[in-house]
């Protein structure tokens, strides 16, 4: 606003901003620092030595919890959520560019899912799959298929109810990004392709897709990291096994060694790695686009 000189207001606001950033990052840095303590280290300062001891303890497992298995489950679910979020968001984004009867209703449902308290969504999905279970069991009994009935566990699971629960959280973000992308999208390129005789598929594959590729990478990143850290929507909808954040939530009350900080450092590093990869990939796609 003040073009000539930084005003007192600027410095006041800058100080506020700096304090806010410090507030955001400070505690997390503390966790990272404390996770590198020596074997004598406790949950608080002062630091006692410097080692990778607590990461080793983490690899051995924390109490009864199999961290490795939970990590694999979270990675697998995150990858599936990422792929489906990208696919469904792009398809729906394309649909919204055309005349879509009922498009507004669909849009409101998606936004409603974004602001719905997660515990309600989670409870609903849990209920739905439990009712499916009872229905199936009743059906199997009615058909007299007792051996199948005995083997049947539950339809609640990582790639059924939990996957669905995660998608209700990641897809709104994906769709809103697609809207932002197509709002700035110049359809002239597509028209040119059509005029040159390209089929709709060719037009999409060779014209639209390269142009929106960096944003698609962004949607993938949203999909993975939102799923990777999700608790509230998964809590009632996952069944017998747990994802890493759910295990972590349980561990906060039982684990009293810095290995829980080590776990925090590991999950944070994975989140940041995925982000860095995505940003790097998006940047690379953009560079390639500019050259071509």
């Amino acid at each position, binding site marked *: 606003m003040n073009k000539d000189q930084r005003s007192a207001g600027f410095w006041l606001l800058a100080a*506020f901003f700096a304090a806010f950033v410090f507030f955001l990052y400070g505690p997390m840095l*503390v966790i990272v620092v404390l996770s590198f303590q020596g074997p004598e280290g406790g949950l608080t*300062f002062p630091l006692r030595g410097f080692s990778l001891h607590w990461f080793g303890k983490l690899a051995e497992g924390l109490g009864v919890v199999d961290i490795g298995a939970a990590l694999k489950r979270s990675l697998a679910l995150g990858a599936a959520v990422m792929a489906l979020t990208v696919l469904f968001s792009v398809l729906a984004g*394309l649909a919204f560019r055309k005349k879509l*009867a009922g498009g*507004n209703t669909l849009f409101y449902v998606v936004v409603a*899912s974004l602001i719905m308290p997660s515990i309600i969504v989670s409870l*609903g999905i849990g*209920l739905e799959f439990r009712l499916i279970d009872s229905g199936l069991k009743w059906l199997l009994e009615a058909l007299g298929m007792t051996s199948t009935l005995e083997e049947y566990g539950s339809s609640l699971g990582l790639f059924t109810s939990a996957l*669905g629960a995660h998608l209700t959280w990641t897809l709104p973000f994906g769709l809103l990004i697609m809207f932002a992308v197509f709002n700035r999208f110049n359809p002239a390129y597509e028209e040119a392709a059509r005029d040159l005789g390209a089929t709709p598929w060719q037009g999409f594959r060779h014209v639209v897709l390269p142009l929106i590729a960096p944003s698609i990478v962004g949607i993938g990143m949203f999909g993975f990291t939102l799923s990777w850290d999700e608790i509230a929507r998964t809590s009632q909808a996952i069944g017998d096994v747990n994802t890493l954040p759910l295990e972590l939530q349980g561990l906060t009350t039982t684990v009293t060694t810095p290995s829980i900080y080590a776990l925090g450092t590991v999950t944070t590093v994975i989140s940041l790695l995925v982000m860095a990869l995505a940003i790097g990939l998006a940047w690379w796609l953009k560079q390639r686009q500019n050259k071509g």
Partner: protein
Amino acid sequence: MSTSPTTLPASTQAPGRSIAAWWQAMPLSLVFVLFFLIPLALIGMVSFWDFNEYELLPDFTFKNYVSVFDGCSNMDEMCVTFKTYLSTFKFSFLVWLITLVIGFTVSYFLAFYVRSSGVQTLLFVLCTIPFWTSNVIRMISWVPLLGRNGLVNQSLQGIGLINTPIEWLLFSDFSVVLAFVHLYTMFMIVPIFNSMMRIDRSLIEAANDSGASAWQTLWNVIVPLSRTGIIIGSIFVITIVMGDFVTIGVMGGQQIASIGKIIQVQTSYLQFPLAAANAVILLSIVLMIIWALTRLVDIRKEL
């Protein structure tokens, strides 16, 4: 992140291809029907069901709703449900107020005081990065700071301000609010910053030229024009806090009640109809708050 239907991308292709469009929108629509609309309907249905220790019993009874408000006609002492809602409202209000003030100030600084757009983007991204890491990690990162032997207590004792450690720093209302602000101010910053970036800069210049002070410009130009962002951010923060059970659980040392926590506990005892009745009530209250928020704006716009 815009939620106004007017920002739906314009139809850029030939009209009359609704059927092809619906095939494309189908996977996404199916997800929301299967994992959002049907589950919500089931919650409504099951909230009228009966149950025993083993299974849900299809029925049409108001028993669950009655038991939610059990003892609430007693005027001398507030019933558990009212107490819980009161405490949840308190958290929602406090967190909303604090995140609004911080979020608005940060966005205002980024949008109007940072001159280069490169620096602007950089600082904005800096604020959003912590959002991508685990909420539980960000919660427990307060433990070494606020605990009985934490950094804050150690420092205060070190400089001789206090003799005994302050106990209310952790596992208290204070730590719950602090964690909420730490976790969710981002949800305020993004929509408010987005609204502010859309404000036509010539309006600010016009205000300047007409002799408005910085405060007058802020209050009479920027705040009204950031209204959409403020409302969207408020809806996010309030709905999150109203339904939360994780933050209140971890940061409250599992001692503070919330509606989300009640629902979670009831499902762990397989009392689904009770949990469903609680969810229906929570949902109605959240919807009323959202409705009031959007009303509030329209009324002020008309004045």
